[in-house]
Every structure is written in structure tokens, then in C-alpha cells.
């Protein structure tokens, strides 16, 4: 601290000197000025090493503040004459607390549910996020979700940002990079629910979400094209998708992500995904293949008023029993579009269709007549799957359509309504009206693209 105070007059003097000098054109003076500047730098560097703070912050005398005060409260500068340089000393005031955000998600539903019941009113999920840089080499992100069934570590991982060769490593529990919807948190989705294909084939709301490692790298590509490869290894436990009975039952996910700017305001994002792990339905391997495309349009001059996003994802799965592949390969997809009409209104639509094996678990559960997968051993499903494979139990197909209207009250809260019509494979049709209030507090949550 003391060194900082002693330093204060030096940059000020240098500054005054610099302005005074500009009129004259003497090289000697310039040299002297430069020498002084360099000395300041040397001293600043010393302060930096002493304080473990960036050089820049040294220009502002940080106010001693109790740790408990969370946000910067500006206090008058201790010096009189020169202008106060720097902001409210946020870096000093924040001390070392992580950025904390809380997102509430209140969902209501009305109408006939056709078999997949959701509560009429529900505090669906409250997500608490803690994010902070840990050290010069890594940062950490934690997302806890408080649902009606309890607390769940939705994601919690460390990201190593300073690896060589353009590599990035994440370790912890995370949503697998399988397509788009699987990586997306509930509050970032453009819909209230998740599409049928996710519910039937990719583990529903939680999706493929497991403890493991993720390594990614930006790949060399022709100019104008962005390519990123992601390879992930997980323990192999994801409800309804993978289950690990032995340590060797790890699951692997690979994702190739491409991106291209079509113009300043339009861009195309596309990806291919593959996931493989031990099947929860049989003593075999469950494999998923996915392809996704997203088109974004946002005119830069009117970015806050208009935008259009079209997205689509296609997913195939196949499960093998023992060594033989089953011929039943359920397939599903969705297509969706969102158009921002003006600053506050977004109009959206979605069409989705997905097949599923009869009596095989989906999330949320469709078929109450079948045993609960969470308490039933996987071996029970093996004959079911064999029956599916022999054609004795044909695949069922669900088809749904939704229209959505979103009202953004501000940057931090929204109200969304969704009218959803679904024809389930069993022959029932659901007409539902869903609504959602979403609100966030704390640090601005910036979302990856």
C-alpha cells in the first residue's frame, strides 16, 4: 500500500511533463521523459509483484474495505488536485469472491397432457452459478440446480485456459458436447420444454451430463471457416442414455463444431456429434449420432431490436445387445425458428418428431404401464429391446408442434408462453398451454455462442 501512495505523484508528474514537452521538440527532453517512464514501469512492476495485481490497478489506490461489502462503493479520492483516474476500484472491492448469479425458472402448464404429465405450477429449477478465475492458468464454473426433487450439481468444472498448442481442457461434471440442446442450460433454451427427441433419446432435461474430461482445440481450416474439435471422456452414467456397471464402462463423446460468417449479420453454425457408452437397456453399447445446424441473423445496427435464429438437430441412436447390432435405430429431429419482432417480443415455432422403443424409458416417463427404470435392473429391458429388434414391438413415433411468444421485460427477466400440441405414438394427443417466468440476479450471465 505505502509504495502505491508514494508512487502516486510520479505518473502525475510524468503526465504533466509530457504535456508541457509536447510544444518543444527536444530529443534530449524526450529521452529523459522516456527514461522516467521506464523507471515508473520498473517501479510499477515491482508493485505488481508485491501485490500480485495487474500494473494497471496500481494507478488507483485501492480503498481498504471489509471483505463482507460485495459491490464497489465509490469513496472520494484521497488526493485533491489531479483528476481521479480509474473506476470505482472494482478489482479491489470484489476481493476474491466469485461472480454469483441466481436464475429462477417458474413454469406452469394447463390442458391435457396426453400421458406425460408435468405439474400445473412448479418452481421448476433455480440455478445458482459461481464463476471465477482461479489462478493465471484456470477458471472454474459451478452451476447448482435447486429443483423440487432436491439439489443437483448441474455442472462444476475447471477450465485450463493457458494450455499450449491452442488446447483447452475441462475437468469435472459437465453437459456433454453432444449437439446443441444437450449443452444448453434450461434458461438459455428458446422454449419452455426440451424437444421430443431429447426426451426420448438423449436423456431428457439433464441429457448426457456426467463427470469426465473434455479436451478441445481450434482446428486449422480454410480462411473464414472456424472449426473446433472436442473430445470428451465420461464415467458413463447418464439417466436413460448410458449406465456404467463397471469402471471400464466409460462413455466417450466427440463433437466437431463448424462456424462461418455468411455476411456481417448472418452466420451459420453447424456440428456433428457422436456419443458411445454402456447401454442402460442391455448389456451392450448405446451409440448416438447427431447433426446440428443453426442460422443466426442479427443486423448490427439494430441488434437490440431484430434477430432471427433457425435451428435444427437430427439424432440417430442404436443399441447393441452383446455383439450383435439391433436393427431398431430410433431417429428423431426438431426444427425451430425464433424471430425477434422488436425490442421486447420474440415469436417462435418448433416442429419435432421422434421415434422411441416401446416401453423403453424416456424422460419424463411416458409409459406408466412399464416398470420404473430407476428401480428396475437393466436386464429387464434386454428382452424388451430384443422384441423391439425382432419387430414384435414396433418403434413408436411422437410428433409435436409448438408456437411460442416471449416477452422480455428487461435484460434480466422474461415471460414466455408456449402452446404445444403433441401426438404420442400410443395414439393420444396432448394440447397444452405452458407459461414460464424466468428471472436472474447477480452477475450478468454471458453465454457462449
Amino acid at each position: 500500500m505505502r509504495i502505491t501512495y508514494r508512487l502516486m505523484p510520479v505518473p502525475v508528474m510524468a503526465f504533466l511533463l509530457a504535456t508541457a514537452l509536447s510544444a518543444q521538440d527536444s530529443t534530449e527532453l524526450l529521452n529523459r521523459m522516456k527514461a522516467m517512464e521506464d523507471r515508473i514501469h520498473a517501479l510499477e512492476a515491482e508493485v505488481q509483484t508485491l501485490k500480485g495485481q495487474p500494473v494497471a490497478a496500481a494507478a488507483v489506490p485501492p480503498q481498504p474495505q471489509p471483505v463482507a461489502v460485495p459491490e464497489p462503493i465509490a469513496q472520494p479520492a484521497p488526493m485533491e488536485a489531479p483528476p481521479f483516474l480509474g473506476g470505482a476500484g472494482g478489482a479491489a472491492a470484489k476481493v476474491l469472491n466469485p461472480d454469483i448469479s441466481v436464475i429462477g425458472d417458474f413454469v406452469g402448464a394447463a390442458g391435457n397432457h396426453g400421458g406425460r404429465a408435468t405439474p400445473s405450477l412448479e418452481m421448476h429449477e433455480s440455478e445458482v452459478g459461481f464463476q471465477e478465475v482461479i489462478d493465471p492458468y484456470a477458471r472454474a464454473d459451478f452451476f447448482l440446480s435447486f429443483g423440487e426433487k432436491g439439489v443437483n450439481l448441474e455442472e462444476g468444472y475447471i477450465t485450463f485456459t493457458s494450455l499450449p498448442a491452442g488446447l483447452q481442457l475441462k475437468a469435472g461434471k459437465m453437459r456433454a458436447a453432444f449437439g446443441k440442446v444437450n449443452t444448453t442450460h434450461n434458461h438459455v433454451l428458446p422454449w419452455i420444454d426440451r424437444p421430443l427427441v431429447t426426451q426420448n433419446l438423449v436423456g431428457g432435461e439433464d441429457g448426457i451430463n456426467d463427470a469426465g474430461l473434455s479436451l478441445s482445440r481450434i482446428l486449422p481450416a480454410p480462411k473464414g471457416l472456424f472449426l473446433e474439435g472436442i473430445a470428451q471422456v465420461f464415467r458413463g452414467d447418464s439417466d436413460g442414455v448410458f449406465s456404467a456397471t463397471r469402471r471400464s464402462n466409460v462413455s466417450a463423446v466427440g463433437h466437431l463444431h463448424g462456424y462461418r460468417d455468411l455476411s456481417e449479420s448472418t452466420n451459420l453454425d453447424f456440428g456433428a456429434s457422436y456419443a458411445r457408452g454402456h447401454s442402460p437397456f442391455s448389456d451392450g453399447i448405446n451409440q448416438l449420432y447427431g447433426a446440428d445446424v443453426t442460422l443466426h441473423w442479427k443486423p448490427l445496427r439494430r441488434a437490440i431490436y431484430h434477430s432471427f435464429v433457425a435451428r435444427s438437430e437430427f439424432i440417430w441412436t442404436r443399441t447393441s445387445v452383446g455383439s450383435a447390432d439391433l436393427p431398431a435405430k430410433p431417429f428423431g429431429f426438431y426444427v425451430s425458428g425464433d424471430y425477434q419482432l422488436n425490442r421486447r417480443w420474440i415469436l417462435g415455432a418448433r416442429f419435432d418428431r421422434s421415434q422411441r422403443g416401446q416401453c423403453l424409458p424416456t424422460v419424463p416417463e411416458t409409459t406408466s404401464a412399464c416398470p420404473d427404470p430407476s428401480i428396475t435392473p437393466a436386464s429387464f429391458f434386454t428382452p424388451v429391446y430384443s422384441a423391439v429388434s425382432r419387430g414384435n414391438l414396433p418403434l413408436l413415433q411422437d410428433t409435436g408442434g409448438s408456437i411460442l411468444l416471449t416477452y422480455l421485460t428487461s435484460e434480466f427477466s422474461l415471460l414466455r408462453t408456449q402452446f404445444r400440441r403433441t401426438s404420442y405414438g400410443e395414439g393420444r394427443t396432448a394440447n397444452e398451454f405452458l407459461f414460464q417466468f424466468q428471472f436472474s440476479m447477480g452477475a450478468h450471465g454471458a453465454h457462449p455462442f
Partner: protein
Amino acid sequence: MDTLSFLLAPFIASLILTGIHAYLGVHVVERGVIFVDLSLAQIAALGTTMAVLYGIEPHSSGAYCVSLAFTFIGAAVFSTIRGRDVRIPQEAIIGICYAVASAAAILAMSKSVEQTEHLKEMLVGNILTVSWYEVGKTAALYGVVGLFHFIFRKKFLAISMDPAKAEADGINTRLWDFLFYASFGFVVTSSVAIAGVLLVFCYLIVPSVGAMLFSARIGPRLAIGWTMGTVVSALGVYLSLKIDLPTGATIVCTFAMVLILMALFRQFLWRKAA
């Protein structure tokens, strides 16, 4: 400036919207094509975008003519789709037209830069900022359209309520369908420019749905629709100022609330009375 004179122009504008849209809404709901207004408005927007892309000034009459021509093409498409083949619902084709027109407009806009970005602003209005000039122009325009519909009311109602019978009576349904959609497109395009798509949609659908709860005949339905529209407009504009909320959104919510109240009234009180 006092509150009254500040809110007078938006209020008069919403009354004009109520007048024409409650009437057109009866037709639209009867035909089961409730998204046709969104679709036609988008087609008109595509027209203006194309005109600007080919170097015509956005506010000129040239651009207006192009947009009108596009609207008429849309009207022609919609008038031909009402066939006997019920396998493809009309609403689906209207939806596809909306999607195609939106996508084409976006593609066109991403081609050029500066001017088209401001274009959307021109096409989607905010009822609070409506000027007296716009109010006057719209009133005159809707007067003409309203008169046209009043003169030929029998034919228009016949093709909307019972197209099979109308055809049997020797009415050229294709021609009258086209005229309906063309005049409708004309109205919707202007309305969207002063009030925005969502508000126009509400003015079109909600009064007519509210009226259907209580009556099956056209006369009472129109009366109920107009009353409801007027009450909601006044209430919405007033509330928006009182609680300082965006006017368009407040009117939309007021519409929803009044509709729910009407439904409850119908459910619990109307039956007892009857």
C-alpha cells in the same frame, strides 16, 4: 402537454383499428385462418425490402406500389388454396408463406446494409408514437375499405360463412376470396405500420373470439367485438400511462384479461341466466 392530448392520438388510432379489425376478425375466425394477417404483413414487408434492394426509396410511392403488388400476389395465393382437398390445412400453407416471406426478407436484408436495417423500423410501429397525420390517413383508407365491404357485405359474408352454399348460389368464390384477401392485406399492412404485428393480431382475433362466446349471429357479434375493442383500448392506453408500461404490451395483456373475464362470466353466470 397534458395527459389527455398526449394519449388522444393513440386512443383514436386504436379505435380505428378496432372498427375495421373487429369486423375482419369475424371473417378470419369464421374461415379458420387466424394467422393470415401475420403472413400478409410479412409478404408486404418482403415487397418493401425488395423495392429498397433495387434502389427505390423506402418512403416513396414506388416502394408502396411494390409492397402492394406483393400483397396482391399473396392474396391470390391464399384465395386459390381453399379447395376441396382438406388433406393440407389452409393454416399450414399460410404458415409456410409466413416462413418463406420472413426468410426471403432476411436474406434480402443481409444482402444490403444500411438502409434495410432501418426499414424494419418503418414497417413495425409503436402505437404511442402515432402522429395525427397517420391517424387521418389511416382513417380515410379504412373508410374506403369499410365502405367497399359494406356495399358487398352479403357476398363477403356468404363466402366466409358457407362457401359451399355460396358457390351453389353462383357466386365466384375465387374472385371474392381474392378481393377479401387483397383488401385485408391492404388494411393489415397499414395497421402494422402504426401499431406493430402483435397488437394488430390481438385486435383482429380477440374481439371476435370474445363475441363468439355469446352469440352466433353476425350483428350481435360485431356489436360485442366493437364494444370490447373500445373498452380495452381505453383501458389499455390509460393503464399503460398509469403504471408506466409499454403501451402495446399493456393493450395485449388487457385484451387477454378481458377475454378471460368474459369466459368466466359465460361459464358461471350466463348459463344460470339462460
